[in-house]
């Protein structure tokens, strides 16, 4: 019934349609008015007062934090507040939980803020988190990210997502209304770091259960973050206004935040130039250099915890030979790639863990410490040992997503392979969805993808190559590697943990099913009158930290 009324409403909003006969007159008047009207000083479309407008690249798939939200994460971080949040340097800060403790790293107790409120005034309780996490794990909704709970070792999460245990068995409990307890399957010293993930944000039980299909609509939506949902017009905008019941309301300075889903970088840039937009999602590659010299203060391009990867399909010849894979990895001149091909602040990458997150030194024997000449010499030796030469070159195919920027990158890689080893590379560009499908089915020789670390721990990046994770597409399954990561998770001492991460990195680089090429930057334009903006290691930007100063 609700849905029907909603559709009906949308139709009557176009009241003029009823008078279709007057349309020609309407058009003539429209043209006349537009021709005569005085341009004036107040231009339409310009945000007013303390409204912040942010670019959001595409329409969010959903505003349910538990489901795969695609490009909706910024909106989720503004609307909901998890147990903890992430500071600009990636450190964990208290949010809905004001403190927490654990004696054995297996049972964690979180003490929630007594004054935290949902946007309808209800208190935020431990029960809310119990409900939200159970809902996330529930096998009824496999398109939610229940697997994330399993990957961070919450007790029974894996069996629950697989349908072998009921959600009530999940290792979460409300000790009292403001004490939330999590029990893990094994001790994990990095558990709290992983809690910044958006899937773990809480939802309001009464709303979700009361309106199962409509609870993410502005009319019903209830959230516990600094903002609440005011308007959602698909493919046009999502508008948030401050949550009047938010515990830190006095420090929220904006009147509203608007997210515009603009997929075209040029269109977004135009809106920014026209003043309709304050923070962009990205910068058109062709404009980057010019903007960096003309408006350096507005250009942001910090390194983020994401790595551009070349994946080698080790399941089939010729790339089932680890020495040949190494030759390919070594022959890429990453300095040339980052400074000449890309040149937007990217950094050469030699490990799965982004360099900005790594807190350990790589040994001198590791290939990252060699000079490029040395790498190329070894590459050529390994290539020849594998039975290839200039007379008998290796023929390869790289599959990559169909966009201009990607073409330049893989073209450069192919040229480097040609120069150093004489490899003949065929470049095949595919629509992203098709490429993902080919990757999933191991239907490729070499393919590109981006590795995102989702929380501030090397574990987040390294876990991608676990046997239970996506590693199997390239054939990487190594029980020693799995074991190392399990140990790292349990190591309470940071130095000891980092030593294990290093071993895992070294182990993976001996196999080289995939090679990191460079660390990505998160490029944005930010208007000078947006105050409180700071670059974030993981790319988290919370609107509650921002304000608009008079300009």
């Amino acid at each position, binding site marked *: 019934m609700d849905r029907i009324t909603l559709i009906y409403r949308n139709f009557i909003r176009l009241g003029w349609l009823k008078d279709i006969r007057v349309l020609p007159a309407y058009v003539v008047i429209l043209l006349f008015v537009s021709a005569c009207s005085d341009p004036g000083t107040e231009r339409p479309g310009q945000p007013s007062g303390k409204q912040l407008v942010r670019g959001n690249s595409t329409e969010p798939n959903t505003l349910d934090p538990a489901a795969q939200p695609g490009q909706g994460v910024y909106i989720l971080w503004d609307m909901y507040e998890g147990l903890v949040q992430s500071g600009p340097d990636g450190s964990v800060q208290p949010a809905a939980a004001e403190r927490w403790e654990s004696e054995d790293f297996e049972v964690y107790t979180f003490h929630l803020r007594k004054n935290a409120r949902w946007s309808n005034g209800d208190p935020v309780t431990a029960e809310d988190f119990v409900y939200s996490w159970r809902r996330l794990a529930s096998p009824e909704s496999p398109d939610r990210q229940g697997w994330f709970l399993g990957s961070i070792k919450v007790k029974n999460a894996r069996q629950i997502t697989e349908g072998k245990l009921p959600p009530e068995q999940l290792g979460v409990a409300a000790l009292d209304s403001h004490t939330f307890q999590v029990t893990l399957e094994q001790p994990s010293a990095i558990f709290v770091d992983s809690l910044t993930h958006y899937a773990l944000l809480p939802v309001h039980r009464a709303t979700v259960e009361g309106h199962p299909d409509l609870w993410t609509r502005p009319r019903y939506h209830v959230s516990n973050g600094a903002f609440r949902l005011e308007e959602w017009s698909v493919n046009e905008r999502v508008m948030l206004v401050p949550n009047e019941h938010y515990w830190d309301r006095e420090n929220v300075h904006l009147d509203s935040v608007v997210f515009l889903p603009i997929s075209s970088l*040029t269109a977004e840039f135009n809106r920014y130039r026209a003043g309709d937009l304050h923070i962009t999602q990205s910068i058109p590659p062709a404009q980057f250099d010019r903007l960096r010299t003309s408006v350096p203060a507005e250009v942001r391009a910090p390194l983020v915890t994401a790595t551009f990867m070349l994946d080698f399909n080790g399941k089939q010849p010729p790339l089932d030979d680890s020495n040949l894979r190494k030759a390919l990895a070594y022959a890429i001149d990453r300095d040339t790639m980052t400074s000449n091909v890309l040149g937007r602040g990217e950094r050469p990458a030699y490990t799965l863990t982004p360099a900005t997150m790594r807190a350990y030194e790589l040994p001198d024997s590791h290939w990252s410490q060699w000079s490029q000449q040395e790498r190329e010499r070894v590459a050529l030796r390994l290539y020849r040992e594998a039975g290839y030469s200039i007379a008998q070159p290796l023929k390869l195919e790289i599959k990559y997503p169909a966009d201009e920027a990607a073409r330049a990158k893989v073209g450069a890689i192919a040229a480097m392979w040609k120069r150093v080893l004489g490899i003949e590379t065929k470049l095949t560009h595919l629509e992203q969805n098709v490429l993902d499908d080919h990757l999933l089915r191991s239907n490729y020789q070499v393919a590109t993808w981006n590795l995102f670390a989702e929380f501030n721990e090397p574990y987040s990046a390294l876990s991608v190559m676990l046997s239970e994770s996506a590693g199997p597409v390239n054939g990487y399954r190594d029980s020693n590697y799995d074991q190392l990561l399990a140990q790292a998770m349990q190591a309470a001492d940071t130095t000891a943990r980092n030593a294990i991460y290093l071993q895992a990195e070294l182990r993976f680089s001996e196999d080289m099913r995939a090679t990191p090429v460079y660390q990505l930057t998160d490029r944005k334009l930010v208007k000078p009158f947006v105050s409180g903006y700071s670059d974030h290691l993981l790319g988290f930007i919370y609107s509650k930290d921002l304000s608009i100063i008079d300009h």
Partner: protein
Amino acid sequence: MLSFILRRILEAIPTLLILITISFFLIRFAPGSPFTTERKMPPEVLANIEAKYGFDKPLYEQYWSYISGLAQGDLGPSFVYKDYSVSELVATAFPVSLKIGLTVFVVSVVLGVFLGILAALYQNTWADYTIMSFSVAGIVIPSYVVAPLLILLFAIYLKWLPAGGWNDGGWQYMLLPVVAMAKGFTGYIARIMRGSMIEVLNQDFIRTARAKGLPTRTIMLRHALRPAMMPLASVLGPAMVGVITGSVVIENIFGIPGMGQLFVNGALNRDYSMVLGLTILVGALTIAFNAIVDIAYAYIDPKIRYS
């Protein structure tokens, strides 16, 4: 006439069914699925998701359940916009495209017909050459070139109009997209109109009218306009469907929440039910407008009668 309309409706059903069947299998055979994402998911999770939406069943079974859902008016859930159903999304996006499309249509037809007649009347004079030059320019310069230039001029330098957005279709927001979309369409109509008008003006009955001493205005409006409109009528039906179902390029550049965006996102993300829903809508509209054109012919052209 009534039996003609009835026959057209009955004919439309098998046509639509064939369209749905072809589209259903085509999109299913395209590689990828709505659930393949760049974020690497464990394969078991993906298998669970596919099972939930019945993608693990044989294709003919899925086809059957889609058709039976459709018979009850259910276009299914959207896989990309998970919080909405396809019907809901279309119900919000279609009025937007319709509003822009109708405006473009009316502007182009009025302006195009007028300019076409003018060019025909003053054939091979400076007026004709000017109108035709602009028409050709309007047709050949693509809208993805004109639209950014319009934005650059009117939004960024002059600051008269917004650089994009919709805002419930305020006229400032509609002006640039309508101009960008209408320029080619207007040129196209003007050219057709000029050609057919010149042809009509050389006919014997016009010569007779002139010989009888009728004023040019009467000749044009009473005698020449109707037959000259005929070639145009057959073009306008499909063209109408084209403009009201949204322009991918224009909607993308101006950030308009219309059907074009749904098309692109649906196709790129393999949103099966969305693609099918839109195909059905466009198919049905095409059939309907072709029928309307045929009926209109009966009124315009005395030689055509449906009995």
